[in-house]
C-alpha cells in the first residue's frame, strides 16, 4: 500500500488500520455480466463500530457484503478479515441475508433455523447437546422470539422472520456481524428489538456492518457510514461525512427536498 493512501483529504495522517480492522476491502470490483455492480471499492471497517452502508437501489450495497463474504466472486480486489484471510476467520463472521432471499415455506421450525447458526461448530454429525439447544433458545429470547421456537417459519410475520435470522447470526457468537437490510419492511416493534440487540453487540465490543435504506435513522442507529453508488462516495464517522453534499453525490441528486429536510432534522 502506498503511503499516499494514508493521508486523508483533510491532510491528517492516519495510521493504516487494515491490520486491526475486522473487515478491510481493497479495490474490490464485482460484475454481473459486463457492467460492474461495484467498482474498485475500498473500505476499512473500524473495530467496534456500527457502520451503515447506504446508497440508492442498485448501488451495489448487497453485492459489497456478498463479495466481502466470498458469496460472489470478485473480478478484482482483496478482502482482509481481522488482518488475515477470510477462510481462516469464517467462524468470527455472522451474516444476516435479506429476508426475501429464502423460501419461508421451507419445512423447518424457528429453533431449527437458529441451530443452523451452529452447524459449523457441530460439524457433519456432531450431536446437538442440551446446552446447544439452551443457547439457541437464549438467542431467540434476545430478539424477543422465545415463545415462537416451535413454530413453522412460514407462520411468522415479516418482522418475526427478520428476528429469527438475527437470532441465527447470534448463535454463531461471532465478532463481526454483516447484515443486509435488517430493517426492511419490519414493524416498529421489530425495528426497536433489532437495534437494541445490535447496540448490545457493539457494547460487547463486536463490530456491526449493516446495509441500511432509511437515511433518517442513520445518525440515530450508526456511528460510521459508508456511502456507495457503484463507487465509494464517502466513508467515515457519521458526524464527519454524513452530510447533504455527500448524500447528493451518492444519490445523484435524486433525493427530494422533503428527504433532505427530514435528514437535517434527524441530524439536529
Amino acid at each position, binding site marked *: 500500500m502506498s503511503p499516499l493512501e494514508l493521508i486523508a483529504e483533510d491532510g491528517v495522517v492516519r495510521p493504516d488500520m487494515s491490520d486491526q480492522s475486522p473487515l478491510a476491502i481493497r479495490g474490490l470490483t464485482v460484475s454481473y455480466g459486463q457492467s460492474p455492480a461495484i467498482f474498485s471499492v475500498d473500505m476499512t471497517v473500524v473495530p467496534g463500530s456500527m457502520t451503515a452502508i447506504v446508497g440508492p437501489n442498485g448501488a451495489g450495497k448487497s453485492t459489497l457484503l456478498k463479495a466481502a463474504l466470498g458469496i460472489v466472486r470478485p473480478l478484482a480486489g482483496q478482502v482482509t478479515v481481522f488482518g488475515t484471510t477470510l*477462510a481462516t476467520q469464517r467462524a468470527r463472521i455472522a451474516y444476516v441475508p435479506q429476508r426475501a432471499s429464502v*423460501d419461508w415455506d421451507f419445512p*423447518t421450525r424457528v429453533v431449527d433455523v437458529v441451530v*443452523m447458526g451452529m452447524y459449523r461448530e457441530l460439524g457433519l454429525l456432531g450431536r446437538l447437546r442440551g446446552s446447544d439447544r439452551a443457547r439457541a433458545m437464549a438467542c431467540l429470547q434476545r430478539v424477543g422470539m422465545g415463545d415462537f421456537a416451535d413454530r413453522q417459519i412460514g407462520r411468522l410475520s415479516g418482522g418475526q422472520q427478520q428476528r429469527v435470522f438475527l437470532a441465527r447470526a447470534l448463535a454463531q457468537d461471532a465478532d463481526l456481524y454483516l447484515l443486509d437490510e435488517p430493517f426492511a419492511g419490519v414493524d416498529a416493534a421489530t425495528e426497536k428489538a433489532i437495534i437494541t440487540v445490535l447496540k448490545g453487540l457493539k457494547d460487547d465490543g463486536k463490530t456491526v456492518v449493516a446495509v441500511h435504506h432509511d437515511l433518517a435513522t442513520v445518525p440515530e442507529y450508526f456511528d460510521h457510514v459508508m456511502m456507495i453508488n457503484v463507487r465509494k462516495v464517502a466513508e467515515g464517522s457519521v458526524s464527519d461525512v454524513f452530510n447533504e453534499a455527500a448524500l447528493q453525490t451518492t444519490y445523484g441528486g435524486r433525493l427530494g427536498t422533503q428527504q433532505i429536510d427530514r435528514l437535517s432534522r434527524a441530524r439536529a
Partner: protein
Amino acid sequence: MLWDALTFQLGYNATLVAIGAALLGLSAGATGTFLFLRKRALVSDAISHATLPGVGLAFILMVAFGGEGRNLPGLLLGSAVSAGLGLLGVSWLTRHTRLGEDAAIGAILSVFFGAGIVLLTVIQTMGAGRQAGLEDFLLGSTAGMLYSDAVLITVGGALVLALVGLLHRPMVLVAFDADYAASAGVNTARVDIAIMGLVMAITVVGLKVVGLILIIALLIIPAVAARFWTNSAGAVALVAGAIGGVSGYLGSAISASAPGLPTGPIIVLTAFTIFVGSLLLAPERGVMAAILRHFAFQRRVHVRQGLLAIAQGQAIYEQLTIRLLVRAGLARPDGVATDLGRSRAAKALRDEARWEVVRRHEAFSGTAALYDGLREIETVLTPDQVAEVDMLLGAPESTA
C-alpha cells in the same frame, strides 16, 4: 393372494423383488427429498433420461470385447457415466449460457434420450442383441431379478443412505439459504453436486427395477407426499423414505399377486395413491384441512358481523348469520337477540373501539399487527393493558 405376497409366501423371486423394491423406495424417497427441497426436482428427469445412451454403449462395448452384454454391473456403470455427463451438461449450460436450468434440462434430456433410443435400435440389429432386453431399462422389469441384482440394490441403496445421513446438514443448509451457507464457508456448488450425485446413484441402482422413466416418480413423489405431514426437513426425509419403502414393498406385492401386472408402474401408482391420500387428508397442509379451516373462519366472521349488527341495532338479513347466532344461543330464529346475544354484542362493539385505540397508538404497534376484526382483545392484551386501552378510550363503563 395379495396377503401371500405381503407375507413373502409367493416364492423366492417375489420375495427378493419385494425386499429389493422396498429398499430402493426407501433410499430413493430419502435422497429425492433433498433435490425437492433444493427446488430442483426436474434435475432428476435429466439424470434418468441421460442414463440410456450409457446402457446402450456399455452393451455394445461388452459384446465387442467378447463379454456378456447383459452384465448388470457393466450396464449400470455405463449408465452412471452417461448420466454424469448429462449432469455436467446441465450445470455447464446453466452456468455459462443464458439458458435457464429448465431449458438446459429439456435440451439434455431429449438429446441423451434420443441418442439412447438410437443405440438401442442399433443393438436390435446386432446378432447378439436380439435377446438383449435393454428396453426393460425404460420401464423396469423385475421378473428376471437375480440374487446378485438384489445385493447390488441393497448395497448401493445403503451406501447412498449413509451418505445422505452424513451430508444432511450441509444439504439442508444449502437448500434453505444458499447465501448464508456460503457465508459460513460451505461450498454450495460442491453440495449441489453431492445432492445430484446421490440422486444419480439411486437412479442407476433403480434402473433395473422401475426403469429410467419411473425412477423419477420414486425420487420425487415420496418427498412431495411427506411434505404434507411434517414441518421439519429431517422429518420430511424420514417420512419420504418410509413412503418410498412402503410403496416399493406394497407395489411389488400387488404386482406379484396377479399375472401380468408390471412391477415398476404398480410401485409408482402405489406411491401416487399415498400422495393423493396425503394431499387430501394431511392435518395442516391438506386440502380437507384447508376447506375446514375456511368454513370455520367463515362462521367466525358471520357471528362477529351478526353481533356487531345487533349492537348497532341493525337488522340481520343473511340466513347463515341468523342460523349460526341461533345455534350459539345468541339470537332467536326471528333474528331478535337473546340476553346473552345482547351482552356479547355490546362486548364485540367495545372490542372494536379498543382495537381502534390499539391501532392508533404506537405503544401497541406489535399487537396492532394481529388485528383481524375477529379476535377478542383479551387474547392479545393483558388485563392491565386492556385497562390502559379503556383509559385511552375515555368512557370506562364496563361491559366486558
